[in-house]
């Protein structure tokens, strides 16, 4: 009996010590956000969305992204399928939370650029399982929206990582984001998220995302594959990045309505 108690207390002590040795949540977040993402990037992106019956839609795009200080501009040109070829989507994201992002879509069949209403942060991005907020953050995390704590350690695809649990600061933020809790598995060495689990505002499992095929491109750790599964709808999204280029400077001209109309 005494022995058992002794062993148990030793175990507990060692666990406590282990947890105490882990970096705290804010530290992990700071490390994540300190990563180099490149000032601008050009890349191909294939999006494959599959519904719960296994029917899928595949869209191939070429896109550019560039930081303007804390603000960011993104443009995506659709290459296929044929019926949406040359459709183009432009976003100007503003760091100021009070300012609505600007979005435009070019519809080649109408030959018109149309402004579309600012999306909510929790809205789904172009029919995928990622929200506008997920897309906007890319590999970063939002400091403002969450309280964070380190839950322990885990491993994804053989890479040891820290378990970072983030909970929205208040109910309103949770509603906006569409998440009640997020748990990320953050690679200990390169400070990139390898897996993220999301819960909805009712506390039910919402979706799980895996970030894979992470390798260095021009000195920058880059994810090439994102797999997301929505547990409520059974809907899945696969993002495949290729031809990633951080070095060729992306011209400002790509991020204009004229560029949308002109196409690639």
């Amino acid at each position, binding site marked *: 009996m005494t022995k058992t108690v002794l062993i148990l207390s030793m175990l507990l002590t060692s666990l406590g010590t282990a947890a105490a040795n882990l970096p705290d949540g804010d530290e992990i977040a700071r490390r994540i956000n300190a990563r180099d993402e490149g000032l601008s990037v050009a890349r191909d992106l294939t999006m494959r969305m599959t519904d719960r019956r296994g029917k899928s839609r595949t869209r191939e795009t070429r896109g550019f992204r560039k930081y303007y200080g804390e603000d960011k501009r993104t443009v995506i040109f659709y290459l296929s399928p044929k019926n949406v070829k040359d459709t183009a989507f432009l976003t100007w994201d503003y760091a100021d939370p009070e300012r609505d992002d600007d979005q435009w879509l070019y519809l080649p069949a109408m030959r018109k650029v149309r402004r*579309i209403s600012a*999306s909510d942060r929790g809205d789904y991005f172009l*029919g995928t399982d990622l929200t506008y907020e997920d897309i906007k953050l890319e590999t970063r995390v939002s400091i403002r929206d969450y309280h964070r704590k380190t839950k322990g350690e885990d491993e994804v695809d053989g890479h040891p990582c820290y378990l970072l649990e983030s909970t929205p600061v208040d109910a309103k933020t949770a509603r906006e984001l569409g998440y009640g809790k997020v748990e990320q598995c953050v690679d200990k060495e390169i400070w990139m998220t390898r897996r993220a689990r999301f819960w909805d505002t009712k506390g039910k499992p919402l979706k799980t995302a895996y970030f894979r095929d992470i390798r260095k491109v021009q000195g920058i750790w880059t994810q090439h594959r994102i797999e997301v599964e929505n547990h409520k709808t059974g809907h899945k999204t696969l993002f495949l990045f290729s031809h990633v280029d951080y070095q060729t400077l992306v011209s400002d001209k790509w991020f204009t309505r004229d560029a949308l109309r002109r196409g690639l």
Partner: protein
Amino acid sequence: MTQEALKSTRAWRSFWFITAYPKTVITLGLALIIACASFIPTLIKDTRSDAFLPEDEPALLYRDKVKETFGLTDPMVVAVVNEGSRGVFTPHTLNLVDWLTKEIAKLDDIDPDRITSLATENNISGYDQGMRVAPFWEDAPATREEADKVRQAVMDFPLYVGSLVAPSGKGTLIVVEVPDQEQAQSLYQQLLALAERAPRVGEEEIHVAGEGAVSGYLGSYIDADAQRLNPLAALIISTVLFIAFRTLRGVMLPNFVVAATVAASIGLMAAFGVRFYVITNGLLPVLIGIAVADSFHIFSQYYEELARHPDNSPREIVVRTMVHMWRPITMTTLTTIAGFLGLYLASVMPPMKYFGLFAMIGVATAWLYSVTVLPAWLTLLHLRPSPAYRPATGGAYRTDAFGRMMTAFGRMVVRRAGWVLGMATLIGIAGIYGTLHLELNESRIRTFQKDEPIVRADSIINRLFDGVQYLDIFIETSQPEDLFDPANLKRIEALQAYVETLPHVGGSTSVVDYLKQMNRSLNEGRPEAYALPQDKDLVAQYFLLYSASGDPEDFQKEVDYDYRLANVRVSLDSGKYSDEKAVVEAAQQYIDQSFNGPGIHATLSGRVDVDYHWIKRLGETNWGSVGIALLMVWLMATLAFRSLVGGLITVVPVILTVLLVYAVMAFSGIWLSISTSMFAAIAIGLGVDFAVHTIERLEILLRDEQRSLDESIVALFPTTGRALLFNFLALALGFGVLATSKVVVLQEFGRIVALAVSVSFFASLTLLPAIAKVFRPGFLGFRNNEQPLALGTELQD
């Protein structure tokens, strides 16, 4: 028959054997009841109207396909109504909608993404530079200006006017898809509780309706009903038993048979996983009635024997009774089984098929207990004569006032035999006329009394909105993305335009309506741009554009993921079969002639289509089941009496019964519906007993050469006639109890079966003696060379 001869019969020896081990027989009987009853707690209730269709019914398969592909179910519909001058577009009412939507999303049995209300839906609107897809509000309107803006936006979105908001603005709906109809009852209760505690002011009202709610309501309704009705039926039947025999055993032992019958029938139902359907409620009084019927005859004979042979031992009296009664009660058991076999064979709908099957099991159990446990128990009891049967001199007995009343009735029948036959002919003719004018119809909401909240909710919603009875049109094209083709979209648009011209159709929605709204929004919101885009690529691009703001699942109620399948949901404001029939048949004709073509195909589906098919089925199979039940009963009676004519005469009273009841229904405007369609088979099964008992006794009485024909016939009345009277009273009152049910269809069922039983009783006791007297059929022992007797001349008072 001498005492010795009687004791050497096989019947005597059999019953002598059964009564040798009374305690064993009773113990076995009890054990069987307990074994069967132990399954009853596992019984599953099934109030879905889908339960009426066989699982392989094409209409159901398509309905399930629509459910699987588009997630559309029979929803619960919560209506928020404000009859004030601004309608629902006041800050408070819109906040109420917002509150309700959020609270409903918290409930367990629903998918929060499958709630449709002003608080969940996106508005698609246009402005000079583009299209805006956004919820009608982020935070529910706080000021009158904001509420007015919502009104403007909603009223400018044709798709939602009528379906989501009342064109008058007086109401708006929250449509809640029910993922599992089994949860309907609890979900409905939860919604009512929510409506109850919702913060309402002024003229705000909240109503809950829809097919999902009807199922849910019916479940709790039936529970409450059964708990009240079944004890009442047992009490009434016990009272009739007491009046008939005025002894404790005359009340308790038949109730023991009732317990066995109900336990066997319902217990086996549970054991085999058969569900308890809405109409299974009607089975309980049938079982109770069947179970006591044999007892009436056995006890009548028992007390008769006791009055005649007061010096016999209990065992001798019991065996004497059984020797006389086993034959008629076995015959009635077989004919009743034949009637329910007819129902079983002819029905395609599972609830009715099982009704027939478990009624047969009940009848057989009642017979088994009546010829084993009942005599065993009576053997154990001390002899105690009934006050209704007093011994008289010379081995005879004096009957009570009921017996004397029946004798008087018998004399009248014998005197007026010709008149009886004439009346029967007239009733038969009226019955045929009525039968030809029966109206096949049904309406689920009619199940409930008019003052029930669900009926009010239904009528208010159907008045304010397009309607909540849904017909789905499932559209299939051959290749993915074929629905981008403007030619296909135009076809769907034309189909919708046609269907909307049909009576009781309030409106329809499909992806076409969304595309038109998008087209208009992208053309600066100009009203004339509310039209389909002309270019296949543009359609594809509209969907992509929409996905920039909407959810990936937003159009899943309208199109499948690869744009090959689409659904058109048509709203009807009536759930009445005759109205649904007109719409379904017209829509089908249009689809066949104008819609279907190479590469595109439409199939009707949804609640309205399913209802149409099964009620139609009901009409088609009804006559078959009546015919087969009659045929089976005739066959069985023919075998029992070993005479074709005998079999024919046996079914005459039940045919007359069925015709008369149909006539009453036709003349009083009662529909041939779920509840009333089964009465015929039940009436045949139950009613034929009166005829079998009458003929069996007549056969015996007429063999007595010492009495005149009329005296023999009159002798039927104080004995068998008296037993039948109580049998009839127990049945009629037992079914009469159903007439006090809160479920309108059960009321109808109860009244009609009570009427049918009454008609069978009177027809058997008047028509059969009259036929015997006038036509002197050979199977009753008449010799053919005898001169027919002049009507009414032989009787001496």
